[in-house]
């Protein structure tokens, strides 16, 4: 019985939150990895793109709520998501026209593109704050729990509680649908193949029936969609704050690089590696420890790292991977 309680505690405090967080990171990392493999630079503006997309989704959600439109037990934000994606995609295309297009034309070095994206990041961050402010916003208005602590106790009679929030389920389900759609798109459609071809060999792509402008436009649209979905899911699961998305940039890049940057499967795997490490290392294992070894009464929390240091986990993994396996778990490519 104690073993089951320990398992329940691990599931409740580690596996469920880390899975939801991993799905959010994976979607973010997919956006970074797509830009990296097709446009060939690290897009530092991605975190703030997520913030912008989420901000738009929140505004539209409020609009829907004011009009009395709701999505039943699901959060209204899901209904607002397609509109948010459209606005974000439009902003991406606009940014590309105004900023990135010029640097592509002069064939700027990747490091120049990275610095340009840092500039875009600041502008986008300001735009988001201008649009929606810097306050913490909770915009989840759906049913809060799929399983709450009481239902769990009535259901199983276990002493250890387990809760499953609906946003966690929504995150994972949405992520699965998004990833499936993306892989179908990249693998089966002509546009997706053009994107892969462009990523494989840009010179040859230019000598083929591949319109580089279309590939670039489609890449930005998909990136905008991924960023908006990832940002909204994160905001639903935790809460929205304009600055948190900038901080997410580190774990997102760590995910993409750990998995092998430029490789979509790697981005997903990397997201989960990072999230499980982060949650696992910052969780206080005292409860689980006392279940498993009842005679042991630990003095501390049996917590390897304080949650204040959770970003250090991404940093450490990032450095270790770059030293020992720079191509990542799945073979990525280094431009």
């Amino acid at each position, binding site marked *: 019985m104690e073993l089951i309680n320990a398992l329940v505690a691990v599931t409740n405090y580690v596996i469920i939150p880390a899975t939801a967080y991993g799905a959010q990171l994976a979607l973010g990392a997919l956006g970074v990895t797509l830009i990296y493999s097709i446009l060939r630079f690290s897009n530092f503006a991605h975190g703030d793109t997520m913030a912008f997309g989420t901000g738009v989704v929140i505004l539209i959600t409020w609009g829907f709520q004011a009009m009395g439109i709701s999505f039943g037990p699901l959060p209204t934000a899901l209904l607002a998501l397609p509109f948010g994606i459209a606005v974000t995609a439009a902003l991406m295309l606009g940014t590309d026209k105004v900023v990135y297009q010029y640097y592509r034309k002069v064939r700027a070095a990747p490091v120049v593109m990275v610095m340009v994206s840092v500039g875009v990041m600041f502008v986008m961050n300001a735009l988001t704050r201008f649009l929606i402010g810097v306050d913490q916003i909770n915009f989840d208005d759906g049913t809060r729990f799929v399983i709450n602590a009481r239902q769990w106790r009535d259901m199983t009679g276990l002493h250890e509680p387990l809760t499953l929030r609906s946003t966690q389920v929504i995150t994972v389900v949405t992520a699965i649908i998004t990833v499936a759609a993306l892989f179908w798109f990249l693998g089966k459609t*002509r*546009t997706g*193949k053009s994107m892969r071809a462009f990523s*494989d*060999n840009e*010179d040859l792509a230019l*000598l083929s029936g591949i319109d580089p402008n*279309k590939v670039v436009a489609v890449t930005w649209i998909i990136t905008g969609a991924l960023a908006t979905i990832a940002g909204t899911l994160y905001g639903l699961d935790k809460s929205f704050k304009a600055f948190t998305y900038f901080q997410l940039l580190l774990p997102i890049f760590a995910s993409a690089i750990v998995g092998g940057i430029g490789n979509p499967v790697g981005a997903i795997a990397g997201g989960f590696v990072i999230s499980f490490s982060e949650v696992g290392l910052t969780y206080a294992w005292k409860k689980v420890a006392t279940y498993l070894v009842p005679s042991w009464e630990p003095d501390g929390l049996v917590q390897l790292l304080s949650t204040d240091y959770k970003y250090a986990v991404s940093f450490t993994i990032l450095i270790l991977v770059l030293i020992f396996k720079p191509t990542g778990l799945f073979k990525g490519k280094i431009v």
Partner: protein
Amino acid sequence: MIRVENLVKSFGGFRAVDGASLEIATGSITGLIGPNGAGKSTLFNVIAGVHEPTAGRVTMDGEDITGLAPHELFRKGLLRTFQIAHEFPSLTVRENLMMVPTGQAGETLWNTWFGRKHIRDEEAALLKKADEVLDFLTISHLKDEKAGNLSGGQKKLLELGRTMMVEAKIVFLDEVGAGVNRTLLNTIGDAIVRLNKERGYTFCVIEHDMDFIGRLCDPVIVMAEGKVLAQGSADHIMENEAVIEAYLGTGLKNKVKAEETAETAAHEDHGAQPGLGDEAGHGGDQ
């Protein structure tokens, strides 16, 4: 017809192409030879739009095409292959070919989701064409293989196949035989001749293998130090003193000449010069 007039391309102070003028007649298979560093590949790259020329003009059927970008030239029917074969390694051989034609309906995001029927018809037509091309090149068995797994020679064939997916007018082949074994080189040679005869493709071929050049090309243009040194039929070129000197240096020239005189004395008509072919060819495929 491609006409190149006084083309100059310098990299810093080095003039890789130094006032080259030449013509590639429609319907010909023109060979372009010359020692390493003669400026052949640079000339190709300038004609194909990879590099902007420093000076000079390139015209195609009278139209000025100087400095046009590769994809613009592609749309005009001027295609090229690369010394080191280019392919899309993560796509299959068939997908590589299907990627070639321009302006496909499936390339827009809208059609991807809402124009499925239209795309399906187009894809079916492309698939048929790609399979025909693979059949022509005798590599049908490789159609579902990832192009990245092909051998160097098979990649060269695939490159040739790419030119067949569109209505090419002129195709520039850069060292089509480099690193290709003899049997495959013959397949490539046959394909070039058939494309030239049956479909009216014009070819311009850079190649070091003199047997290959002698069998396929007429006329042959010789470059050295960025300039056109000589032009004429393969046999004629190989007897040209300046050419032998450029290839072999003056020291060897006399020796070759001595052998030549002996051979000419022995046979009236001896065809390609084995001496020149062996010395100058890269010989990696023997």
